[in-house]
């Protein structure tokens, strides 16, 4: 058996490992083992790559590889270990972006090496695809990171003639790509790469903060496809399989996510969400003049303590305040008193689908106390209190009642059906989608302003005293 065959066999095993790992990641029972399997497959495949004589042919190249890997690992491990679970979406965005960047660089370096020999047209097409998609993913992820990290506004960024500018950039990229294929000219490819970076930025800028998770999932799929393109370029089946797996499953996952928000993918990416948000922003003045009812922690504590059924609806506000442990304390306390308590989890609560489940799991909330939206909604009408902690858009009845609203059609948790609604909020500021919530002004609604952790702690004390 030749060395190449041996390496290919190991790559095949790694590919099988990735497929099984993805399958495992889809079930709660095997998810962790799935991830470990994928990691093991990756380690074996990367290790085996060093068996290629070409990789070890030049000492300088080999040393550079090892140094880059050591630096990369030294940066990535502490970053991934220390990141707060609330900041995880940004972390995934960054790790995704650098993967796209790596794929684009592979295609670029390959082209630098091969361009003088005028490679076959399909090879140039593969290179261009890798560079384009990789650059879009890299730049797009960077902007997504900036939005989530609040380095820039989470609101959609719009400017005059946006569509026209996008179209010009798009046409220019196509033109440059065709010219690159015809001439195999390096500067043309570099220009394409630069424009692709620009495209990544202007593609993401108009997407509102609430939609960024869907976007990250899409960019994740893009990086997968860029990696697959690198696989074609390097004649490497493992990269093709792994990249395509991620690309295909990522696009499906993205569709599932946008479905959870009641919108089509095209609507998420290209809708005039921005303009509607601006309109809602202008209506803020009228919103503020309406009266809301605020309560004291003592009132609400009594309400909770003597309820039969309390539904906790957590949102991102709970996560940023790191209040998941206090929420659990309150829930446990109520349960000790015989109150039926469960958590109603909206699919996009937090900043990524399933994000809230991760955060509550971190606080050791038992799995069976978490109810998915579909499971929770039929129970809302019989709930005495819906305790909305740091959530807003996911309980906004406008999604059901106001056809003009940007979130119209998004499935929500029917907090409005509960007998009493209690909002723990930092302020009257609208949620991530940037629109007003009529539920705040409902007669059944009581508000308690403050940091979620503080207000929950006060409620714990109030329930103990009740």
């Amino acid at each position, binding site marked *: 058996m030749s060395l190449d065959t041996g390496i290919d066999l190991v790559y095949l095993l790694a590919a099988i490992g990735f497929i099984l790992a993805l399958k495992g990641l889809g079930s709660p029972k095997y998810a962790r083992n799935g991830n470990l399997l994928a990691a093991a497959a990756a380690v074996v495949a990367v290790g085996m790559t060093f068996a290629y004589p070409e990789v070890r042919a030049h000492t300088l190249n080999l040393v550079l590889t090892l140094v880059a890997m050591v630096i*990369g690992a030294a940066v990535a491990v502490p970053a991934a270990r220390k990141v707060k679970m609330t900041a995880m979406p940004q972390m995934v965005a960054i790790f995704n972006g650098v993967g796209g960047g790596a794929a684009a660089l592979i295609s670029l370096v390959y082209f630098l090496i091969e361009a003088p020999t005028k490679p076959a047209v399909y090879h140039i097409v593969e290179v261009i695809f890798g560079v384009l998609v990789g650059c879009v993913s890299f730049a797009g992820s960077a902007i997504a990171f900036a939005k989530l990290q609040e380095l820039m506004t989470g609101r959609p960024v719009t400017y005059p003639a946006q569509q026209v500018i996008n179209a010009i950039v798009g046409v220019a990229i196509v033109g440059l790509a065709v010219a690159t294929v015809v001439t195999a000219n390096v500067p043309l490819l570099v220009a394409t790469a630069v424009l692709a970076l620009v495209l990544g930025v202007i593609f993401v800028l108009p997407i509102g903060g609430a939609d960024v998770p869907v976007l990250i999932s899409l960019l994740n799929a893009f990086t997968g496809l860029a990696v697959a393109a690198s696989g074609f370029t390097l004649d490497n089946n493992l990269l093709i399989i792994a990249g395509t797996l991620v690309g295909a499953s990522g696009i499906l996952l993205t569709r599932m996510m946008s479905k959870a928000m009641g919108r089509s993918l095209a609507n998420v990416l290209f809708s005039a969400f921005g303009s509607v948000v601006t309109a809602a922003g202008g209506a803020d003045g009228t919103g503020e003049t309406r009266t809301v009812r605020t309560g004291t922690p003592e009132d609400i504590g009594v309400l909770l303590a003597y309820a039969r059924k309390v539904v906790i609806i957590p949102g991102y506000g709970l996560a940023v305040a790191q209040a998941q442990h206090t929420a659990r304390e309150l829930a446990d306390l109520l349960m000790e008193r*015989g109150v039926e308590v469960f958590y109603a989890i909206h699919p996009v609560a937090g900043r990524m689908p399933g994000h809230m489940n991760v955060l509550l799991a971190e606080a050791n909330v038992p799995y069976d106390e978490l109810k*998915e939206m579909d499971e929770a909604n039929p129970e809302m009408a019989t709930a005495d209190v819906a305790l909305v902690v740091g959530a807003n858009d996911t309980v906004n009845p406008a999604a059901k009642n106001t056809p003009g609203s940007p979130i119209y059609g998004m499935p929500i948790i029917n907090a409005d059906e509960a007998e009493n609604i209690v909002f723990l909020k930092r302020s009257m500021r609208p949620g991530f989608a940037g629109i007003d919530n009529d539920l705040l002004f409902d007669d059944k609604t009581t508000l308690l302003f403050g940091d979620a952790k503080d207000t929950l702690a006060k409620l714990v004390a109030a329930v103990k005293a009740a």
Partner: protein
Amino acid sequence: MNTGILEFLTVFVLAVFVGIEVISAVPSVLHTPLMSGSNAIHGIVLVGTILIMGEAHGAVQLTLAFFAVLLATLNIVGGFVVTDRMLEMFKAKPADRAKKAEDAPVDDGPGGPTGGAR
């Protein structure tokens, strides 16, 4: 057309179907770990960066390849570690649930009616 590209195209098309098939029934609880896990899997681009580094000559190519390896390492290492951290939290459940099960009868028995009566 060269048969090599056709073989790769075959692999690609089959991988599309496998990719769709394996995640068709994922509970939404696991969407985030799945996204993160697949993010780590495309970090296998590291293999490609190591291969391209083997072919690189001259300062420009070496520098670009160096950054390629660096970025890919960040992707693969960070991706797997972050995913593991996420999934670790789903783990400690059985013990916790057992504890809850012990408490539950006590809670539900006297607690339920009392709560309603008060």
